[in-house]
């Protein structure tokens, strides 16, 4: 059974600060997705990374997939209150079931103005 551990579980910072969220596993994933979810809404896909060592940037968000495809990080520069939400990582392990993703438990980020 593949597991994805996200850290930290909770993060409260001031507007303008930088932060990094981690997603780690002992399993290899073919791809990994990051989602952001706001209260009362469904998760929205931010990015998919598929190549070991890959780095993708989405405005102030930088996503990295580990070289061994077992871990990923999300870095936010100069956080804004609009970044507040639950950040979820999800991995596609293949090899086993082709139909399911493994989800982390999420990082709840609060950015205070």
């Amino acid at each position, binding site marked *: 059974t593949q597991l994805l551990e996200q850290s930290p579980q909770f993060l409260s910072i001031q507007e303008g600060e930088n932060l990094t969220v981690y997603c780690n596993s002992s399993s290899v994933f073919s791809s990994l997705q990051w989602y952001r979810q706001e*209260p009362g809404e469904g998760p929205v896909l931010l990015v998919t990374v598929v190549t070991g060592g890959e780095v993708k940037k989405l405005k102030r968000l930088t996503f990295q997939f580990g070289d061994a495809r077992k871990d990923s990080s999300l870095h936010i520069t100069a956080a804004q209150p609009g970044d507040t939400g639950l950040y979820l990582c999800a991995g596609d392990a293949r090899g086993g079931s082709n139909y399911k993703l493994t989800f982390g438990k999420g990082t709840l980020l609060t950015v205070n103005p």
Partner: protein
Amino acid sequence: SQTIHQWPATLVQPVGSPLSLECTVEGTSNPNLYWYRQAAGRGLQLLFYSVGIGQISSEVPQNLSASRPQDRQFILSSKKLLLSDSGFYLCAWMAGGGWTQYFGPGTRLLVL
């Protein structure tokens, strides 16, 4: 483009009453479909998934069931709701052979 719909958005039901939540997807054919439940501010628990009409896989034993009567329709049901069935229910779709799931807006269920 593809869109996914869920209804109702919010539901308050008494204990012991039946449940039917519906999810439909537009703009794609033969998607994989998923039902998740989410506790407040936390991760997703996969309840059911389906890779085709009439094909349902259950992830955890529970008071719920799922059906897929049409290619792009996924229904979550219960004959008698329990207090513990309260939560936020999310439907998602993924293209066959794909690796990214796309979520609906969710249904907030409160069982009293």
